[in-house]
């Protein structure tokens, strides 16, 4: 049976891994290359690298870090942040990325998802969305969560998957950093409308949050988190063992 994936996310700024609480108060954690290797050795199923400042400041991705990581880590690697054109796809794929995540870039140019899917295949294009409730409606936020686009979230996800996004990372800004569990209400709505893999992000504070996620929403394929892994509060190996004990398929690295 296919296993549920556990994905540490490395938000990278100035060559270092950072994690914001509700996207503020960024703190320094470690070298992305070292951290990536550590996670790969300790059971991570995949890694996501986000250049969190890129969409706001147009900063180029840290391709040397990416290259170095892809040289030493042999699990799937997704790269996001500042992906605005198919040239950006090309640049990070050449450095060893397997999938490319688009967020603000797709909002600015809605044809980007389709263009990239035709060039590199659906499986390569990951739609990433930052979603927040505004007056009871799920809205898409751009630029690292700083700008409300006014777009309704579920319709936006549906549209992008229709154009060829092969996977969706759903990050709830309401639960992100709060550590009280994933946003099951939002995730369920997304799972109801798409048939591609759905990755839950935002809100994991403990092992039980992942168990609840996979038990309540069988349509979710993966759980993504950052700080709880970076600070060692949850060890991926412990998480995987607990998943298995609950009958949730998980890959155990021996």
């Amino acid at each position: 049976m296919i296993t549920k994936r556990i994905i540490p996310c490395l938000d990278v700024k100035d060559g270092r891994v950072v994690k914001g609480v509700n996207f503020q108060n960024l703190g320094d954690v470690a070298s992305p290359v070292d951290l990536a290797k550590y996670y790969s050795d300790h059971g991570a199923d995949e890694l996501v690298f986000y250049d969190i400042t890129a969409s706001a400041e147009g900063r180029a991705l840290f391709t040397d870090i990416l290259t170095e990581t892809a040289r030493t880590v042999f699990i799937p690697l997704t790269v996001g942040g500042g992906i605005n054109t198919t040239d950006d796809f090309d640049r990070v794929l050449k450095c060893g990325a397997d999938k490319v995540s688009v967020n603000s870039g797709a909002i600015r140019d809605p044809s980007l998802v389709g263009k990239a899917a035709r060039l590199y295949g659906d499986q390569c294009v990951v739609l990433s969305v930052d979603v927040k409730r505004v007056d009871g409606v799920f809205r898409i936020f751009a630029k690292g969560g700083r700008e409300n686009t006014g777009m309704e979230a579920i319709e936006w996800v549906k549209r992008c998957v229709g154009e060829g996004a092969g996977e969706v990372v759903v990050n709830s800004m309401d639960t992100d950093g709060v550590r009280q569990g994933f946003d099951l209400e939002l995730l369920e709505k997304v799972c109801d409308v798409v048939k591609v893999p759905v990755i839950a992000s935002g809100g994991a504070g403990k092992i039980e949050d992942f168990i609840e996620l996979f038990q309540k929403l069988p349509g979710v394929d993966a759980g993504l988190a950052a700080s709880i892994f970076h600070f060692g509060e949850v060890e991926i190996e412990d998480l995987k063992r607990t998943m298995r004990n609950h009958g949730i398929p998980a890959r155990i690295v021996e």
Partner: protein
Amino acid sequence: MVAIIDYGVGNLFSLRSSFAAIGQAAEVTADPETIRRADRLILPGVGAFEDAARKLRESGLDTVVREEAGRGKPLMGICLGMQMLFERSLEYGIHPGLGLLKGEIRPISERIPEGLKIPQMGWNALMIKKESPILKYSREGDCVYFVHSYSAVGCEDSLLATVEYGAELTACVGKDNVFGCQFHPEKSGEVGLRILKAFCETEADGVC
């Protein structure tokens, strides 16, 4: 030296890096002479079958690969490269493959229950069906990374391992000196590197 055949399909960075990680010299190449000189060949590939098969044919490397495999040189196809080892694919039409292995490529949607996502994307456990030099370091239940919407059928005589995804799908094949992995060993952590290492240790059959 392992020649990773570059016919303009897919990203070969990780494959090259994974051979470096196991201390094996490897070269990404489209040069027929380099391919002929190599001890072993890797046929990679992602994307659509028809497009990849056309590119391989137009590069003329299909003939080189067929000749070298015919001389007994170990060859491993990976993902779409594995699918191209077979007689034909039914991905959007009927397209001939290299015909080095018996069988054809068909959509997994024909065989798996509705509601399962397509492609199969993620880590899944190998069920080993037959001993093989390329699986000598592998164990039943080893998880490897898959991304595919099509799989090989009618390949009983080369079937080495399967994977359960609503149906039992072909994961790994091998006959004589020709091997194939539907999954990505270069993205399957240590388990994947061990398969590449085992491939590098296969005996060349009849090559001087």
